[in-house]
C-alpha cells in the first residue's frame, strides 16, 4: 500500500481509454464488397455470440424502485419476462407461476454501467503478461481493437458483477492519441470475448490528449508537446477524410483500382460517419475546448470526455455540444493535469445540464460506483446542489448507457428494456449497502446468498484459498 504516487502514475497511463463500438450483430461476411451506391463500413468480422442465460419470469416486489427514468417508487414492483422489463409500477399484473422475490426494505435499480474500464486488457494479476491495454508503438493506433486484448478470465469481471455492474465499456489505454476501438461487454462468464459482446452496441474510439501521449512519445519521435499532439491529431483526421473520399469515389464510379483497406482509417472514418463514438480522455478545461474545436473542424462528435478533472470549468461548453462527462468522484493529485479537481465536479456539470457519469478506470472502483456517486452527491449538497437518489442513480446507469449508445436497450427500468436489474440490500448510496442479486437479461447472474449463483473464473480454480475474493 502506499505505493500511491507510482501506482497512480501507472494507472494514469492505463487510464484514458475510451471508445465504443457499433458492431451490429450480423454474421461475418467473407470480404469487403464495395457497394455500387455508397461507401460503407466493413462488415462485422468478430460478431457477438452472446446469448442470455436461462431465466424465468420474475416479479420483484416490496422494494424501493429507482427506475433511473426519474421515478422513485416505494413498495414498487418490477416484472421481468423473457429477458425484458415487462412492467414497472406500484403494482403490476404478473402471470401465474412467476418467481417472486421479496425486496422489502431493499432497493431495485437498473444494472450498473461503467463506461470506462480496463478489465480484461489490464487483467488481474497485474503481471507484465497481462499488460494488454496500450499498443504504445505509435501515437495513432486506431486500428487496434480492445476486444482482441480482453482476457475473459479476468477475476475482476466477477468482482464487478458482485458490485452490480452488468455492462462495461473496455477501452484501450491513453498512451496514444488514438488508442483504438473499445468494446462494450455484458458482464457474463464466457470462454470467449465474443460471448460477452453486447449485441448491437456501437464501437467507440479512444482518444487521448495531454500528458500521457507526450510522455510516452516525447523522446520516441513525438509528439513531444500539446501542440504536437494537436498537429498529429489533425493530420490523422485529414488522412481519414481523404480515405473516405477515395472509397466514396470508388463506390460511385467503380473505375480504376479498388482502394486498399486501412484498418486505422476505417475506424476513423467510422467516427466521421457517426457509427463509432468518440471517448476522449482529457483532464484540462483548455484541452477539452481544443478537442471540441477540432471535432468541429473535421465534422465529428465527441460522445464523452473521460476523467475531465476540470470539466466543471467548461461545463457550459460540454452542455452546448451535448458531450457527456465521464468523471471520478474524487481522483486527483497524481499529475499536473489532475491538480485542479473539486469533489463538486459531477454535481456542477450535472447542474449545467451535462450528462454526468461516474466512471471507474479502476478494477476496485468499478465495484463501488454507487459509493462513488454518493460521495459526489454529498459534495453537491455542500454547495446547495441537491441531487435526489432518483437522479443520482442515472449517473451510473442511464447516462453511461447514453454515452455507449445503448440507452434504447439498457440503463433504465422501463418496459421493453433488457432486464438488467440489481437488488441492493438497502439504499445504494449507503456505504453499508451491497448488491444482493444481479440480473442480466432477466437471468440471475449473481446472488450473494446462494453459492451456486456466485461465478468463479477459471483463474480462480484450484489456485485461490477458499473464502478468498469476496
Amino acid at each position, binding site marked *: 500500500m502506499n505505493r500511491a504516487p507510482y501506482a497512480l502514475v501507472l494507472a494514469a497511463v492505463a487510464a484514458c481509454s475510451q471508445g465504443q463500438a457499433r458492431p451490429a450483430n450480423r454474421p461475418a461476411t467473407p470480404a469487403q464488397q464495395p457497394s455500387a451506391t455508397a461507401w460503407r463500413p466493413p462488415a462485422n468480422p468478430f460478431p457477438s455470440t452472446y446469448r442470455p442465460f436461462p431465466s424465468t419470469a420474475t416479479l420483484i416486489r416490496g422494494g424501493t424502485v429507482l427506475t433511473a427514468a426519474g421515478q422513485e417508487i416505494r413498495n414498487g414492483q418490477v416484472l421481468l419476462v423473457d429477458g425484458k422489463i415487462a412492467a414497472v409500477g406500484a403494482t403490476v399484473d404478473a402471470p401465474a407461476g412467476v418467481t417472486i422475490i421479496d425486496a422489502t426494505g431493499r432497493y431495485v435499480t437498473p444494472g450498473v454501467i461503467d463506461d470506462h474500464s480496463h478489465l480484461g486488457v489490464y487483467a488481474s494479476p497485474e503481471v507484465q503478461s497481462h499488460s494488454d491495454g496500450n499498443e504504445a508503438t505509435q501515437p495513432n493506433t486506431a486500428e487496434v481493437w480492445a476486444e482482441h486484448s480482453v482476457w475473459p478470465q479476468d477475476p475482476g469481471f466477477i468482482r464487478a458483477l458482485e458490485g452490480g455492474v452488468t455492462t462495461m465499456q473496455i477501452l484501450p489505454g491513453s498512451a496514444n492519441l488514438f488508442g483504438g476501438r473499445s468494446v462494450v461487454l455484458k458482464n457474463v462468464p464466457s470462454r470467449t470475448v465474443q460471448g460477452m459482446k453486447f449485441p448491437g452496441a456501437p464501437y467507440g474510439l479512444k482518444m487521448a490528449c495531454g*500528458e500521457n501521449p507526450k510522455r510516452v512519445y516525447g523522446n520516441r519521435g513525438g509528439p513531444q508537446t500539446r501542440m504536437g499532439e494537436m498537429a498529429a491529431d489533425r493530420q490523422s483526421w485529414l488522412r481519414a477524410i481523404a480515405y473516405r473520399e477515395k472509397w466514396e469515389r470508388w463506390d460511385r464510379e467503380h473505375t480504376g483500382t479498388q482502394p486498399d483497406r486501412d484498418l486505422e482509417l476505417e475506424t476513423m472514418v467510422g467516427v466521421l460517419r457517426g457509427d463509432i463514438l468518440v471517448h476522449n480522455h482529457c483532464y484540462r478545461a483548455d484541452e477539452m475546448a481544443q478537442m471540441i474545436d477540432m471535432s468541429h473542424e473535421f465534422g465529428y462528435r465527441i460522445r464523452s470526455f473521460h476523467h475531465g478533472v476540470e470539466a466543471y470549468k467548461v461545463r457550459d461548453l460540454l452542455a452546448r455540444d451535448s458531450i457527456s462527462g465521464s468523471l471520478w468522484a474524487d481522483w486527483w493529485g497524481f499529475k499536473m493535469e489532475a491538480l485542479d479537481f473539486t469533489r463538486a465536479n459531477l454535481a456542477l456539470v450535472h447542474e449545467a445540464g451535462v450528462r454526468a457519469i461516474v466512471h471507474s478506470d479502476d478494477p476496485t472502483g468499478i465495484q463501488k460506483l454507487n459509493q462513488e456517486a454518493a460521495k459526489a452527491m454529498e459534495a453537491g449538497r455542500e454547495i446547495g446542489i441537491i441531487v435526489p437518489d432518483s437522479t443520482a442513480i442515472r449517473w451510473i446507469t442511464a447516462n453511461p448507457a447514453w454515452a455507449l449508445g445503448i440507452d434504447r436497450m439498457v440503463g433504465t427500468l422501463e418496459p421493453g428494456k433488457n432486464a438488467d436489474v440489481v437488488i441492493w440490500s438497502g439504499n445504494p448510496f449507503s*456505504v453499508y449497502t451491497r448488491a444482493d442479486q444481479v440480473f442480466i437479461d432477466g437471468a440471475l447472474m449473481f446472488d450473494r446468498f446462494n453459492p451456486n449463483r456466485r461465478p468463479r473464473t477459471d483463474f480462480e480454480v484450484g489456485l485461490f484459498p477458499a473464502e478468498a475474493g469476496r
Partner: protein
Amino acid sequence: MNRSLSIAAALLLAAGPAAAQTIAITGGTVYPVTGAPIRGGTVLIQNGRIAAVGANVAIPAGAQRIDATGKWVTPGLFESSTNMGLVEVGAVRETNDYEIRDAENERGDQVAAAFNVADGINPRSMVIPVSRIAGVTTAVSRPSGGLIAGQAIAIDLDGNRVEDMVIASPVAMFADLSESGRGAGGSARGGQTMRLREVLEDARAWARNRQAFERGETRDFSVSRLDLEALQPVLAGREPLAVEAHRASDIQTVLRIGREYGLKLIIVGGTEAWMVASDLAQARVPVLVKVLNNLPGRFESLGATYENAARLRRAGVQVAITSGETFKAYNIRQEAGNAVAYGLPWEEAFRAITLAPAQIYGVADRYGSLEPGKVANVVVWDGDPLELLTRVDHVLIRGREVPLVSRETQLRDRYRRIDDARAYRP
C-alpha cells in the same frame, strides 16, 4: 548521544503552545470510542486538551460554544499509513519527499533506516487540507521505497511548522517485503530476508563494538553508521518495524524474523493476513488493513477479500484501517464503512480509524478517543461518520477550529458561476 533521534527530540521540545481557548461542543451525540454514545453530550476543550466529556458537564462562562444538536461528535480520524505532507503532485518528482531514491539499486533491497521524513514535511501542503476538512486530523506520514524505507512520524494535520505538528518521531521504521517492493531486479524472497537479517546483524554487532568502530577496528558493515544507529531502537523492541507483506507465508516470515530478533512488529497491508490470523494473534502483531482490496493484483494477494479486517478481529488481531492513500486519505471513512458492510461491527470499524492506530503507534495516551486529558482533535458530523452522505461541520485540531477550506473548495467556489469576473475571485 544518538544523532538520528536528536531530530525527533528537538521537534518535540519545540512543540508550540496549544490554543488557549475554551470551547464547549454541546447537544450532539458524543461517541468517545472508549465508551457508549452520549446523547446530548458535551465535549469541553481547554488549552488544546479535552477537559471533560459527558452528559452533565459544567460549561465555564465565556466558553465559545459549538452547537452540535442533532449531530455526531467524535475524535478526529487517524490515518495510519500515508505520504501526506511529503508530496504535492505525484508525477512531479521534485515535490516527492517520501523516498530516498537510489537509481543504481534495481533490486529493491536499498536500506535507508536513518532517513526520517520529518524535514520533508510541508505544513503548507495543499494536500493536507483536502483530507483535514473531511475529518482526518492525524496521520502517520511514512517513507516508501526500498527494503528499509526509513522512519515514519505521527503528525497532527495543522500547524505552520513541523514542530507544531509532530506527535512522535519516529513512530515506526518502515520496511517492505512485498512483491511490489522488490524492485525491477525482482530479488528472491529469500534474498530480501537475507539482506534484512544482514542489516539487523550488522546493527547488533555495531552496537556491541561502537568504540572499536570509531577507532576503525571493526569489520566493514553493509550499511552506513547512521543506518546502524537508527536501527537500535528497533532491535531494542521500542520502535516498531512496520513491514509491508501480503502473502500469508510472507507474513509468517516477518513473524519469524521478529521472533529471531525480538522485534516489535506491525504488518502493513497484510492482504492474506486473515489466513494466518491465529499466528498474528498469538504474536500480538497488529495489521494495517486497506479494506477495499479484494483483487488478486499479484500472486502474493490471491487471498484478497473485503472481509480481511472482520476475520482478523474475530481472531483477536489488532487492526487499524488505512486508506493507503495520500491525495485521497479522506476515503479512510469509506474504507471503514465498507469494513462494516463486510462483517466488522461498527464500533470496531470506528475504533480502527481512531484509537487502534493510536495504540499501535504508542500515542494512545494522547490520541484516539474523547477522554479528559487527551489532545482535542474533534470532529462534528451531521450524521454517521462512516456514511458517504454525511458532511463534516466542524474540525478541531489541538483545540483550534480549522476552517473547512482547501484548494479544492476554493476552486469550486471560484467556478460556482462561470463569468469573466472569475479570475478576480479568490
